Each structure stands twice: as C-alpha cells, then as structure tokens.
C-alpha cells in the first residue's frame, strides 16, 4: 500500500514528508526530479515512475507535486485517487491547496494524513468524518483555543465511521433547511477548419449544497434521464433505483459535494452555441500576416453567451501582433506565443471582432503550423444538453426545505487548423 508521501513544490523543494510504514529516504525523490527535468514542462511529468526499489506515483495539483512511494503491487489508480482526495481535503480545510497554506497548518496536515491513511490503507477520507475528528482551522477558533487551551481535535468517536452511511454525520441541525443543486455542463468539441464538428461531448456535473437537518432521504428526478450516456455516482446514491426508475435516490452528505457526473456524447448533442469566422494567413516572403476573427452566437434558446475568452497558440515564428478588438481586450505573450482575447458578453447585434497584423521573425520560413483556437464561454440558466430537473422530494423528515437548482453551461471548443493554407 502507500508507503510514504512527499510534497514537492515547483522549484524542487520537498517541503513535507510523511511515512506510514518505515521511513523512506528523501533521496528516492531524486528519480522524480530526474523525470521532471526530462519532461521540461511540469504538466508532462509521467505519473508512474519506477525506481530500483520503489514506485513513485505522483499527481500535480495547484503547483504542488504529491509524490507517493509504494513498494508492492498497488493499483495506481487507487493511489492517484487517494492523492487527489488528499489535495481536495487540504482545499476543503484551508480554502486553498498551496504550499503556504500547508506550511501554515502543518500540524493539522500531519494529523489529517495520519487519519486518512493507516499502514497505507485509507482510513477516513470523507470530509464529514474528518471534520469531526479534526476541526478545520478558523481564525476565531485559533484565538479561542489559544485563550482557553482547548484543542481542534474532536474527542468523540466519529459516528459516521461506523454507520452504513459513512458520508453523513448524525445529529445535523439547521434553522434554515436548504438544498441547492448546480448543474454545470462543459462542452468539449473539436471543430475542423471547415467548421464541421469532428468530435463533441458534454461533461456535466451536479454539485450540491445540502443543509438539511436530521436524516433526510431525497429523490431527484429528471424530465429526460435517458439523455445521459454514462454516469458516475457519489456513493450515497442507490444504484438500484437508478437502474429501475432512473431516479436519483439518496441520503445526502452534509454540505457541499458532487452528486453525480455524467457524459452526453455527440449522438445526443444539440448544436454548439457559438461559431467562429476566421482568416489567418501568412504571406510568402514577407515577415507579416493577417489575422481576422469574429465570434458569433448560434441558436441558444434566447440565453446570452457570457464570459467568452479565446486563446490561440500562435506559431513559434510570430514575434508580436498588432490587433484591434471591437470588444473586450486582448494580450499576446511573446514568450509562450499565446494570444488571449477576453471578449465578455456576445450581443447578436454587434458581433465581436479582432483583427490586425501579425509580425513574424524576419527571415523565418512561413509558419506551417495551424494555430488552434480555443474558446471558453458560459451560458447561465441553460444546460446545453437539454437536461431538465423534474422534481425533488424529501422523505424521512417533516420540515419543508427550500429547494433550488441552477444551470451553467461552460464551453470549451477547440477548432483546429483554422488557417487555410496550401503546402508548397
């Protein structure tokens, strides 16, 4: 199982280590540093590295490498999932998962790691249980603690750890009982230079914030559940009900959690809500080119497309760009060659446009790479897949909760090879 954990920052400092079995020397990380050097880019460090006596399985989250050391055959996904859970827990406890936050709370971090893993076996990873065992730091509490001498370690047995619903603690009480569901969908599409969709799918999640007293038993139903091609459930959901009735029936954890994530693939896909008109060309033998891009909305059921940001990875030969935007602002980073255009809201009456001159390195051959455009946007109050919530019922408790659901569609499109060029 998991032997040790090292936290390493981007400059290669090991700033925390934890061993669950015998101590493994820090020098084992040298193999990791070697791989990191070879990968050049931090994102490209391979997640599984073998060394003569150990295996290093790492994840990269929030500019921190979580490197775990294992010695025997352990499912790597198990380790990776667990590491992400550790990062999530830090995020949950400290508001951010950064080197500073971890150093500021090192004792809590250590206590958490101790509770999360025993002899390399996961012990308590549910945030509800952990919070009963170790209270998250708040400014108020640390002031109070330092005056009264009380601690942030709970001294009761975490009830959830024993029950059949480990994700919920007993005795929850709220004055305002509320349940919110956020449906967030993300389109992931690749569009070729002629504008036809090569590949598109929707990744959706339903994030919930449930603040209900007692042991509520909820069931959430959709108007069109067959839309979903594949679903991944929070453990609280009863799979049998979903199989037979397509209803999400569950006793929710307390607080924020991800209820389900789902995928809708292209067969069911509605049209992509924005389109792009583009003209990018480089002239032969001159060190300049033209750039002209317009973004417009397609049918989107009367909702506005907001938060539009376009990023373009320009060819290496591009020195700088002289552009004018009819709307929003643009930046071009001459080092990474990334053009970012923050468009904002699209109004159909006046389509945003960005055009101008591209300056190339003199003498460099005409670039062959076709820049790919990446467009991000948001549509409030619309699930792009067409998913609709039918109703939410609560059983088991008597009070009447406040219910709410919201929809956001995030888009991420990657139209490829927009410049239409001939190879000569």
């Amino acid at each position: 199982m998991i032997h040790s954990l090292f936290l390493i920052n981007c400059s290669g400092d090991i700033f925390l280590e934890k061993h669950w079995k015998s101590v493994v020397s820090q020098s084992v990380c040298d193999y990791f540093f070697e791989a990191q050097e070879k990968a050049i880019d931090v994102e490209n460090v391979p997640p599984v590295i073998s060394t003569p006596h150990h295996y290093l399985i790492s994840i990269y989250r929030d500019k921190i490498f979580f490197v775990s050391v294992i010695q025997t055959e352990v499912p790597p996904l198990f380790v990776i999932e667990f590491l992400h859970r550790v990062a999530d827990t830090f995020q949950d406890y400290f508001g951010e998962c950064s080197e500073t936050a971890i150093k500021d709370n090192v004792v809590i971090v250590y206590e958490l790691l101790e509770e999360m893993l025993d002899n390399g076996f996961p012990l308590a990873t549910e945030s509800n249980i952990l919070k009963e065992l170790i209270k998250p730091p708040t400014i108020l509490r640390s002031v109070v603690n330092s005056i009264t001498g009380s601690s942030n370690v709970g001294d009761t047995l975490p009830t959830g750890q024993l029950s059949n619903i480990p994700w919920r603690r007993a005795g929850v009480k709220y004055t305002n009982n509320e349940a919110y569901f956020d449906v967030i969908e993300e389109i992931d599409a690749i569009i070729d230079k002629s504008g036809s969709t090569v590949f598109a799918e929707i990744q959706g999640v339903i994030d919930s914030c449930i603040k209900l007293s007692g042991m509520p038993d909820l069931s959430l139903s959709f108007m069109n559940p067959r839309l979903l091609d594949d679903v991944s459930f929070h453990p609280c959901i009863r799979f049998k009900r979903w199989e037979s009735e397509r209803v999400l029936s569950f006793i929710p954890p307390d607080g924020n959690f991800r209820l389900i994530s789902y995928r809708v693939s292209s067969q069911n896909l509605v049209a992509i809500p924005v389109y792009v008109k583009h003209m990018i060309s480089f002239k032969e033998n001159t060190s300049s080119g033209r750039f002209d891009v317009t973004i417009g909305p397609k049918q989107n059921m009367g909702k506005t497309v907001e938060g539009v940001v376009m990023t373009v990875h320009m060819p290496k030969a591009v020195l700088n760009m002289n552009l004018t935007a009819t709307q929003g602002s643009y930046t071009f980073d001459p080092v990474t060659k990334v053009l970012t255009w923050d468009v904002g809201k699209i109004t159909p009456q006046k389509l945003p446009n960005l055009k101008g001159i591209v300056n190339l390195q003199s003498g460099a051959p005409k670039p062959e790479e076709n820049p790919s455009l990446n467009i991000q946007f948001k549509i409030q109050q619309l699930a792009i897949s067409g998913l609709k919530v039918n109703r939410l019922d609560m059983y088991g408790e008597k009070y009447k909760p406040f219910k709410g659901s919201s929809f956001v569609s995030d888009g991420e499109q990657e139209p490829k090879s927009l410049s239409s060029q001939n190879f000569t």
Partner: protein
Amino acid sequence: MRRGPCCWLETTMTDSKYFTTTKKGEIFELKAELNSDKKEKKKEAVKKVIASMTVGKDVSALFPDVVNCMQTDNLELKKLVYLYLMNYAKSQPDMAIMAVNTFVKDCEDPNPLIRALAVRTMGCIRVDKITEYLCEPLRKCLKDEDPYVRKTAAVCVAKLHDINAQLVEDQGFLDTLKDLISDSNPMVVANAVAALSEIAESHPSSNLLDLNPQSINKLLTALNECTEWGQIFILDCLANYMPKDDREAQSICERVTPRLSHANSAVVLSAVKVLMKFMEMLSKDLDYYGTLLKKLAPPLVTLLSAEPELQYVALRNINLIVQKRPEILKHEMKVFFVKYNDPIYVKLEKLDIMIRLASQANIAQVLAELKEYATEVDVDFVRKAVRAIGRCAIKVEQSAERCVSTLLDLIQTKVNYVVQEAIVVIKDIFRKYPNKYESVIATLCENLDSLDEPEARAAMIWIVGEYAERIDNADELLESFLEGFHDESTQVQLQLLTAIVKLFLKKPTETQELVQQVLSLATQDSDNPDLRDRGYIYWRLLSTDPVAAKEVVLAEKPLISEETDLIEPTLLDELICYIGTLASVYHKPPSAFVEGSRGVTHKSLLPRTGSNESVESPDTAPSGGPAADQPSVIPTQGDLLGDLLNLDLGPPVSGPPMATAPVQMGAVDLLGGGLDILMGGTGGSFTPAPNTAAPTNVGAPLGTGLGDLFDLTGGVGTLSGSYVAPKTVWLPAMKAKGLEISGTFSRQVGSISMDLVLTNKALQVMSDFAIQFNRNSFGLAPAAPLQVHAPLAPNQSVEISLPLNTVGSVMKMDPLNNLQVAVKNNIDVFYFSTLYPLHILFVEDGKMERQMFLATWKDIPNENETQFQIKDCSLNADAVSSKLQGSNIFTVAKRNVEGQDMLYQSLKLTNGIWVLAELRIQPSNPNLTLSLKCRAPEVSQYIYQAYETILKN
C-alpha cells in the same frame, strides 16, 4: 536538495510559527517547555517538535520528554505524542518500552476511539520488543464489540505481519483475520480482505484467501455497503476467484456491474477487471454476454474525462482491453482523439489506441487526425504520429494508398525528423505490399542526404538494396554510404553489407568491386563479431555457390503482418488478470519487475469454458489469429535463412513470438544466438526459461540449415530424443461427444511435446480446438496454442504435436505426475487427466561432475534414500548406461565391486531438482537394484517408474 523552512513571521496565528529557524539550543528550550507544568505550554511544545519532525529535522533527542507527555487525558496531545512515537521509536527501542504500559492501558479504555488509536499506533512502532506486548491487546481488539476497533485491529495484523511474520502465524492471528471476512460489518470485512491480500502477497504459498461460494457471497454483500477503498480491496480479491461454472460467473458479474458507475475511478477499473476476467467463462451466445459488453464501454470512456494522471493509467489499461476485446470500444474512436492540452504521456497513449481501433470504417477520420498531429510541435509525438500513419497503411489495406500519399506530403515538408520517420515506415509498407508503391522510391532517394539517424539510414539502404534493379544509380548511392562505413552504427553497417550483396546478385557485372570492398570492410577491418560473421557467411556463399547465394539472399520474403506490436496472447491473458495494477501500466507480468518477485504467482485465464478464444476466434483476435500465419512466415529452411539475412531491421513479422523473436535478432547473432540455441543455451530465446519448447521451434530447422553451411553438425545430430511410450487413449469418444483423444509425451532435443491424435467419431464436423492444462506439479503448460488447421470431418483423425514448456503455474498434484487437461471444441469442453512419465522432464544438462556427485551424495541425508527393484532386466551395464543416457539419465561413474557393476548416475528435472542414483547390476541376477537420493524424496517413486519404463522398452 535540502529545503530549510525559512523564517516565518510570527504575527500569524498559524502553525508556521513552528517553522522558525533552528537556533542554538532550540532543543534545550523545547526540552524545558516539554517538562513545563502548564498543559498548554506542553502541547505547544509537542506541536513544535512535530513540526520540526515533519520537515526532517532530527528531534529524537527529546524522546524521553515527549513520552512523558503521553499519559494525558487530552486526546490531541495524545495523538501528537503517538505521531512522534511512530517516527522515532525505531531509533530508541529501549526508550520505546516506556510507552508500552500506556498503550496497554489505552487498549482497555472505555472509549473505542482511544482503543483503536492505541492498537493502531502500537502496530506502527516497528520495534520487536514492543510487538511482544502487542499480541494480547491485539487479540482482544480483534474481538472487540465495536466494529471500529475490529477494523483497525484487522489492519494491525498486517502491520505486525510485516514486522514479524512468524509471530503472527504462531499467535493464530491469520485465522482470526479469516474469520473477520464473515463479520457483520462491511468495513471490517473490507479491511480484513485488505489485510489478508497484503499478507498473501508476501506469502505466495499460503492459501489465505481461499474463497468459496459462501465467502464470495459475503464479500459481494459487503461490497455494496463498504467505503470506496474497501470496494477496491474486495473487487481485487474477487478477481482472484475462479467461479465453478458460467452461472456463478454471471451472477457475480451481475452484482459487480453497478460498481461501474462509481465516482472513484479505481473502483471502476477494479470492477472492469473482475468483469473482463469472468466474461471469459460466459458463452458468447448468451444475451447477457452482449449486455455486459455494452455496459463496459461507457465507464471506460468516462475515465478519459478525469485528471490526466488517471487518464494515463486508464489508457494503459484500455490498451490491453482493446487487444483482448476490440468490440467493446470499436465505436468510440473519437474519444481517443488528442486534445491540444493533453500532457504528452496521455497523447502518446491515445495515439497507440487510435491505431488499434483503426478499421476500414473509420480510417479516413483517423488519417485526417494523424496528419494534423504530424505537424504539431512535440518531436516525440510527431514521430509517433508518422509511425502511426504507416501502421494504418499496414493494418487497413484499403487505406494504404492514402497513407502513402500522406507520408509523401509529409516528406515534402522537409522537416528532418518527419522525413526520417516517414522513410522508416515506408520501408514497412513495401514489405507489406510489394510491387505496389515502388514509384515513390525516386522521391525517397531525393532525401538521402538529410538522413542522419541510423534507423532511417538503414531503412533507406534496405530500400535501395531491395529495389536495386529499379534504381539506376543504386551502386552510386550505396557507394556513397560506404565511404564512412566505420563511423556508421552496426545497424547501418549490417544493412549496407546485405544491400550491396543484393545489388551484386542483381547486377553482378558492374558491382564486383563494390561487393569486394564491403566484404573486406566487414570482415577484415571490423571489430564487430556480428558484422564479421555475416560478412563471412556472404563471402563463403558467394564463393562456393552463387546460385545458392541468390536463392538465399534474394529469397521471397514473407509478408509482414498487420498487427505488429500486439501483446503475446498468453501474456495478454495474464495481464487482463492484472488490470488496474502496476503490471497493467508496464504491460509486463509482475514477476518481471516486482522486487525480488517474491510472492508472485502466475495468473491466467484458466481453465474455463471458451478459453483460448482470443487466439482462436477471428472476431476477437484482430489479426485473425497470428497462429494461423505461422507456416507462411517460416515456410522452409531456405526462406528462414533468407529471412535472417534480410530482415534485420526488426521489422514486424507475424507469428507466435517464440518463433519471431529469434528470427528478428537472428541475423545479428546468427552465430551467437543461433548456436546457443543449438547447444541448449539460453541464446536469443524469448521465453524466460531456457528449457522450454521455444528453442526447438526454431532451433531445429536453424540447426540443419546452419549445419549445412558450416559443417557444424558435430554433436547436434546425436541428441536423439528420449523414450516415447506408445499412444494410449486418454479420452474415449463416449465421454466426449464423439471426440477421441489418444496421445503420449515425448522429449526431443530439449523440448517436451505432447503428441496427440484427435479422432472425430461423431457425425458432425469439429472445429475451434483449444487446450488448457490445470496447474500441475512441474508447471507444464502448452507453449503454443493447439493448432488444428482444418475442421475435423467425421471419421477423420489428425495428429498434432503440441510443444510444452514448464513455465506454467505450479501446484502439487497427487499423484505427482498427474496432469489435468481441458480440451475445447465447437461442441463442448471436455476434461480428462493423464499421467506423464517423469523422464520427459529430465534435462539435457543433467550430468553432474564426479566430485560434485560425491559431495552431494554425502550431503543428502540418508533418510532421503529409497531403494527399488527393477525386475527382469537382462541388460549389461553398458547397455543400461547408453539406454538411460538417451533419456537424459547420465552415468557419472562406473565401478566394479565384487563382480557386480555399480553405476552412479545423475539427472536433473526441469525445476532444478537433482536426483542421484546408484544402480547395482549383478551379471547373474536379472533384477537390478536402484537406490535413489534426492532432496525432494517424493519424486523418487516416479523416477523409479521412469527407470523401469525406459529400461524395459
């Protein structure tokens, strides 16, 4: 690399204040604070100590002071002290004893949280003295009324086992742990399974997780209720179970399927493993089989929307799954299209899977994508994309033309590495579709000068040599390479040598000088033995018999197969059992890389209904079953040699890897590897054990081929096989719906085979034969699939020699030489068991040195000696000796004592067991006395049987 935590301002109310730099006397200050009367100060001090420990500072000097803080009611302080103890107890074992009493007391605490914490911490203190005291509290905790304590105690057993395995066994903790599998609480069950699995890993022989239908049922119930991590342990454990029939397999599958919708990807993948494994047992005609196939695709696709690290592991596993069952994901090509922001390791994996899924239906899309990738920035990725285009051409014949024109487009870009990569793959395309695309050679020749990588140069030279008659200035081109001959890499040198010889055979008049030049460069001026050897072969060939040379060198080459990098079927089956593990990431069986390979048992998809279908049925094996291609790959000796001499670029060749591995490297170590094989060495063999069937598969024809060339027959021909018993009926037709199997075992030149006669006594045609062995005492296993080429018509019989190896799973059988066999055909699966004569396991190098023999004889205790009588054998000593030698029983010494001949003999079994024998032959007495001495006396009886069989026949 040390990272001193820097100075933190003390203004924040956070823990960073504990990171203030080490001042002189810091330890001293802490010591004072730890011994303070104020509780709060004590706690703060312990916190500071822990913080220092976290960043690797040595605070072990404070041990006694920290331990003093242990007896407290404050839970946090207690926990902190425990943390400290776990870290430093090892370095201060005597001091750690001080803590024992508190631990024992805490294990009795009314609060279950404290009890669990105490037993948990005690297990983490890796000090022998402490573990002695741990046993009693642990025993209590394993039976605690509170499940939280029980589940913690279960893990503690695993900890203790890691520290002192013997102690755990002596104290009977393993049995208690096994009982916990039936616990009422699912978390306890999960932890017990996890602990047992971990212990079992270091304890391969023990039958710790002996699963039966009842315990499986318990596990399946617990599966629904335990935590996600527990589910992973239980699923991994389930995967090791062998359901007794397809009904049971199906019912387990049904109960595991809901796990595919779990949010935790590790749970999903473990569930996939169970399903993939048990699916083997289900009949393909079953409706449920189809349903299951459909259910597997969506979760696999969903894994690809997770974090990149998860994607990577998922992709490595999907790579295995699409090889085993391509139908699962055949419609999901698009999800494997590369995204611009994927990390490079994800991109490369996706590319691999794209090619595996490429088919006529989607090839246009795939090619369009690949062409895009070939213009990306990352060099590795671009190279792989270009290579992928070539693989598509080879895989999907209809697309070959488009692939070639795409490659030509890419060559036009003149991007150096793209051009080189393209030339390498075009060479393969020529091999696959001869006389079709040679028109592009001119374009390739234009880029000759830009090639600077050995592989590309070698590929180009191969093309020039192969098509020398169509290239006007072939001699000039090759001559230009010859100038820097000694600076080239071996690969290029070898290729250049072959290409010029080819050229000479095609255009003898103009190129005589050139060929002499290259032969002298290769033989006289080179230090490389491979190169020299090949040079001499050509030289001799050309000088003795140019016609033969032409036949050998210019022989028609077998076509290369489409699927070049498929994992070998038996390995694939094994890897399928390891889905989700490190083995699946490395695509190697755990025995190949797990440290010390302790505790690794071979897993296989065996023995079950419909096994081997990956090899047999064309719809699952994408290449249509490489086994069937074998004869066309190695048709005759001449071609084999031709092969060796031509195909040393390591081009893809189909056929079972055992045959191809030596072929691919054959030319390079024609003498080295090839002859090693002849001499029974390990040479270029692909399989791990030298005594397997692999060498002979190729070794035999190679032997004669080379023998002819070099007159090296000495010693080779004399290795006649050992005694072969006549075939007996193993499976009567009555018991097997008309299929009669008779057979025998034989050993020839180091390889064991099972000679079978299959007779169809039914009225219908039989086909789709496959064979599997159950685990047996010596690990006998088929080295190749059972090949029955044509369906067996009624009243027809076919003789087959099935090569065996001894690398299969081992399980002691009773009797020792019992072999249980399952044979499948289109009608049903049949089981029978047979006894094999032990002498097929006697290896060729079983002759012991005299001194060694004497020493070993003395060394083996006398109680291991057994005596037997061989009756009615009227042979004299020499006849006995030579007869036995034929079956690899070697006479080490012969003595004449008081008129009787004493033969001292040795033999070695495939698993390395030596047996020493003393055979007393009295001239007047037809009965021989045999005394056997062996470290494993249980084999003696069977050795005696072997003696008797050999001598009496």
